[in-house]
């Protein structure tokens, strides 16, 4: 069944690509110049942000490093790309599974997969781009590169323009002065995503403020209740990886009530997977919609 789906998808892609008539393209990736003289049909991506970029122009990857959990891929992306085969964890994807998929393009992350770049190249041409440490604007640049390499430059530019419009529209409906802090909560630790992180970038792109920190060398920072008090954001958005998380434990403490966001009942919980692991055009739009729902609550 899987194979027939792939075949159908492949045929579909063929017809689409023939219509657009692609030839050799060259782009700059993290290792210098990368060119491809055909439109790739079987793409394996090793980070969620790349799957997002492919889905944005209607291309379905055959394999995703999804940590063996399909639910980690953004629902919007899942709807577009259909089924795929898992190639293992993002940190150590299984090269034999990648090879068995016979891809004609692999998209890898420079921060996680540089050590196996040479091996990946033996399997298929490998486009290596920043993903894990990327900011919001880096991500859009990477999406444009991916669009070009899969022969959908035009479609990707249109999609990016649409994205900017959408974000600008949503920004108008959001308060520009509010400081919004996002963090993921585990059983024993809260990690804040600062202004340098991807989520921080999306919040800024929506015209809102992220709390300023006097030490901005880290995008993710473990934070105690006391430090959260010092930051004291207007809005605090939490993704709970476990329930009950440390934030749930804090709620019974008297100091929790001192937080501005608590007093004004501006604590919201969102899907940590979307906000922390997924990055990309559709992920950003998903996050923006989450924020709209939050701010337009009566």
């Amino acid at each position, binding site marked *: 069944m899987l194979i027939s789906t792939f075949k159908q998808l492949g045929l579909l892609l063929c017809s689409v690509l023939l219509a657009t008539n692609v030839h050799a393209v060259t782009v700059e990736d993290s290792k210098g110049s990368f060119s491809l003289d055909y439109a790739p049909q079987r793409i394996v991506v090793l980070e969620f942000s790349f799957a997002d970029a492919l889905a944005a122009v209607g291309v379905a990857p055959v394999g995703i490093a999804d940590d063996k959990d399909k639910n980690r891929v953004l629902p919007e992306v899942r709807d577009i790309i259909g089924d795929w085969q898992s190639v293992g964890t993002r940190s150590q994807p299984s090269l034999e599974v990648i090879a068995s998929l016979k891809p004609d393009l692999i998209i890898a992350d420079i921060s996680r997969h540089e050590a196996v770049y040479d091996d990946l190249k033996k399997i298929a041409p490998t486009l290596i781009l920043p993903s894990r440490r990327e900011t919001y604007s880096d991500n859009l640049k990477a999406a444009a590169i991916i669009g070009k390499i899969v022969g959908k430059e035009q479609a990707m530019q249109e999609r990016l323009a649409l994205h900017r419009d959408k974000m600008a529209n949503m920004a108008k409906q959001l308060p520009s002065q509010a400081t919004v802090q996002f963090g993921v909560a585990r*059983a*024993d*630790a809260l990690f804040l995503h600062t202004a340098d992180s991807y989520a921080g970038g999306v919040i800024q792109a929506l015209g809102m403020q992220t709390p300023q920190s006097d030490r901005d060398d880290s995008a993710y*920072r473990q934070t105690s209740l*006391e430090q959260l*008090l*010092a930051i004291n954001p207007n809005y605090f958005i939490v993704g709970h990886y476990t329930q009950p998380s440390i934030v749930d434990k804090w709620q019974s403490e008297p100091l929790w009530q001192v937080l501005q966001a608590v007093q004004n009942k501006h604590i919201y919980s969102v899907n940590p997977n979307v906000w922390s692991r997924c990055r990309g055009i559709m992920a950003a739009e998903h996050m923006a919609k989450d924020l709209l729902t939050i701010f337009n609550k009566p």
Partner: protein
Amino acid sequence: MTRPFYGLTIVLAAILLLLLGWWNLFAWSVIPIQAQDVWLSLTHFDSQSISHRIVQDLRLPRLLTAMFVGACLATAGTIMQGLTRNPLAAPSVLGINAGAALGMALVSTLPILYGALSTSLAAMIGGGVAWLLVMLLGNSWRIGGNEHGRLVLAGVAISALCAALTKAVVIMEEDQAAGVLTWLTGSLADARWQTWQHYWPFALAGLFGALLLTPSLNLLQLGEEHARNLGANLLRSKLFGSFLVLLLVGTTISAVGSIGFIGLIVPHMARLLVGQDFRIFLPVAMLLGATLVTLADTLSRAISYPMETPAGAILALIGAPFFIYLVRKRTL
């Protein structure tokens, strides 16, 4: 060692502890707290003032827990050095910390065990099993150096084993590696009144029990033969001592996580100050342990201000060179 000088040491150590404790309440705070705020929050508590509430709700339980953690671990180290007559014995060296961490990791990640045991009980059992293994392994090979070295080697092997298993259990459960490290390094940042309430009764009982044990520890230092001739019940004191060590270390680890090297360093410092008599140097060791952990906790906010560095990591950084010094000084 004359009694007056001993009294003076105790008083000085207590004053030092109080001063450091006072400093701990307001120093390196992310939200600025003045020294007088601390006083005011204790005498004229104002529930509207954030700094008062931080002192009351965060700093005080944290400080008290830090002091007890130091005292408990120093006491546990003293008892272990007394029981094994080994200057290198300490909870972290002989595998108790690693075993307790493994016990906690097992009950909180494996669904079968979930809820079957409380975490502190699991920490005690894990630590106890690890210690038993170390003693068995260390005593079973008579070749290769004296007893001190053998025990340490056995401790290292068991610690490494427990640590690897803990890592395996936690990595399979948590996808993010950061979780493993917060698991394994003790920190006082999350110590609250609730932690304190669960902790102090056991800790206090253990500390009092240790004071009762000191005469037997003194006898043990004469060697088992002599001690037996003098009418000591060796088995009873060894069992009681081991139980106390497990109680002290297990409750401490379940309250704040694994903190190493206090049990190794502090007994030596105390012995250096007031001599070999356990009845005298155990109280000094308790005070010094409390002082050291309080200091480490203050530093934990200072080192990468405004972020916090777990106190366990700082103590390990101080303790490891001391360990090297101890090893080099002794003829092994």
